């Protein structure tokens, strides 16, 4: 059916340039320019026009064999009548049987969340209140998870995030929250919305502290950091849940973690989340689908099958700055979840890329041409060649 989309990245700049110049009698170390040097950049440029690794991360993972969902069917060839009939049956089951059941469950779950948390909110601050609040939250998230037919397997539960800590995970979809909250209670962090989301947010806050920011507050990084710090410092507060990539990635790799979350202090509890793509594609491509459309697709998939690994807690080492710490945590998560550890920034999805990357390439090339000893510059991006 389908051929996987990945391709060999090709050699490093040095390797490729070396091959280009092989016919010349001088060695690379002598430097010098060759007219064919530009071919390297030319071809890399064309390859990125035809496809590029980074943009790939923002589209859904391709499957090796079809799972009977039209949406994962990229290169459809009409194979046989039998397959089409099976597919048709699948559609009927998913849309007419599973979907209504799931929608009902989801509505029940959310309604109960609002009612339950509001009721608990009337109680005075007491251990009982906290216990009830956790109960209500857990119950609702579990109902919602059923509403998605989510099958979650938790590993290494002994490393579960503790109160006063910060839970950090890779981000694939808004459903991540439901997945994690099925097994423990977290303080959510996010922007306060209006509408239905706003109602849910406000009622949640009544029963236990979450951290909702106004849109204007989000821009002031210091304000954000200090509010989170205050939350963490109160050791009785639930662990905060943060997704440092800043945006949804397609669950085949982990992109650069924003260092802001790692400047707050406190203990970091990394969590790796890996969805099984065969049953349903959980990735939210926010450019392509809005939230409602996305949830509809979720509820008409076969199931959401997830593996969650709780990693041992990490703290910042002496002499390590926030960015290095962030990278260390990211690698741990990528390694555990079997995801590619990419140094690209998730915000590349939206913003223009930094000039620094271009400069790095120029630096590398210039050291070849000028024959300097400066062969110490690394490739602009580190990509582990391991692929699941």
């Amino acid at each position, binding site marked *: 059916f389908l051929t996987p989309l990945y*391709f*060999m990245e*090709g050699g490093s700049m040095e390797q*490729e340039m070396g*091959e*280009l110049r092989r*016919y010349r009698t001088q060695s690379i170390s002598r430097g*010098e*320019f*060759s*007219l*064919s*040097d*530009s*071919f*390297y*950049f*030319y*071809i*890399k*440029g*064309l*390859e*990125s*026009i*035809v*496809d*590029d*690794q*980074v*943009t790939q991360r923002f*589209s859904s993972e391709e499957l090796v064999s079809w799972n009977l969902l*039209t949406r994962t*069917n*990229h*290169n*459809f*060839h*009409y194979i046989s009548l039998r397959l089409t009939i099976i597919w048709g049956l699948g559609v009927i089951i998913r849309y007419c049987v599973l979907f209504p059941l799931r929608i009902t469950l989801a509505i029940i779950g959310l309604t109960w969340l609002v009612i339950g948390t509001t009721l608990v909110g009337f109680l005075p601050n007491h251990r009982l209140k906290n216990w009830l609040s956790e109960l209500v939250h857990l119950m609702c998230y579990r109902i919602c998870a059923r509403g998605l037919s989510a099958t979650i397997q938790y590993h290494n539960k002994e490393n579960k995030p503790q109160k006063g800590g910060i839970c950090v995970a890779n981000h694939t979809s808004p459903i991540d929250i439901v997945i994690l909250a099925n097994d423990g209670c977290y303080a959510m962090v996010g922007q306060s919305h209006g509408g239905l989301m706003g109602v849910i947010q406000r009622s949640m806050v009544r029963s236990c502290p979450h951290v909702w920011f106004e849109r204007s507050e989000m821009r002031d990084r210091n304000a954000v950091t200090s509010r989170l710090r205050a939350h963490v410092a109160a050791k009785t507060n639930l662990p905060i849940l943060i997704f440092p990539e800043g945006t949804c990635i397609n669950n085949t790799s982990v992109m650069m973690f924003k260092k802001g979350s790692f400047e707050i202090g406190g203990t970091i509890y990394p969590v790796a989340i890996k969805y099984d793509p065969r049953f349903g594609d959980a990735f939210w491509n926010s450019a392509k689908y809005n939230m409602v459309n996305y949830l509809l697709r979720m509820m008409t998939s076969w199931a959401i099958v997830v593996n969650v690994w709780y990693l041992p807690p990490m703290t910042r080492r002496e002499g390590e700055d926030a960015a290095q710490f962030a990278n260390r945590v990211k690698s741990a998560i990528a390694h555990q979840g079997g995801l590619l550890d990419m140094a*690209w920034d998730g915000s*590349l999805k939206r913003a*223009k*890329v930094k000039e620094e*990357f*271009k*400069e790095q*390439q*120029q*630096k590398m*090339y*210039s*050291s070849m*041409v*000028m024959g300097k000893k400066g062969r110490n510059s690394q490739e*602009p991006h580190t990509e582990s060649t391991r692929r699941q």
Partner: protein
Amino acid sequence: MGSTNSTLSKIPNVEELVQETGFTPAHIVRLYDRFEALDKEKTGHLRPQDFGAINRLAINPIGDRIIGAFFSPGQETVDFHSFVRILAHFRPADKKRPKDPSMPEPVNSRTSKLKFAFQLYDQDKDGKISRAELLQVLRSMLEMQVTEEQLESIADRTIQEADLDTDDAISFEEFRKSLEKVNIDHKMSIRFLR
């Protein structure tokens, strides 16, 4: 229902495109999907800004020139057919194809690829790479890393080596000659468009 077939039917003159470029229908569909993905405003055409949004291209030192290769002089947009035709130049050569002198030269031949590479340097399309044009390319690739003198001496040396008729510029024939030992098919082909 079917992706490939319905996509194929959306593209006008597919047969012609397949004949001309040597891409398989599956490749063309893939390129069409890519074209649509880049064409964010769904105009059916790509403008230089749409290429500029590709991150890896934006950090390529000669990214602007590569984008320029897609737009004929005076044109501000490129349609799908032109997009595919230009990319067809970089298809790896068909090893099995017999060398038939009566057939027109395939679009992805060695000469064709070299012509493209030549045009990268020869921006004013006068058939020669002047010293100034060479300096421009060098500047893009080296920018802040070397001094102007070093750039000039590199340019001088390169022209000296390649310029056989001593007109202080590199013609296409001289360009071709100086690269005769380079495996152009390997180095100027996009690998996964096989």
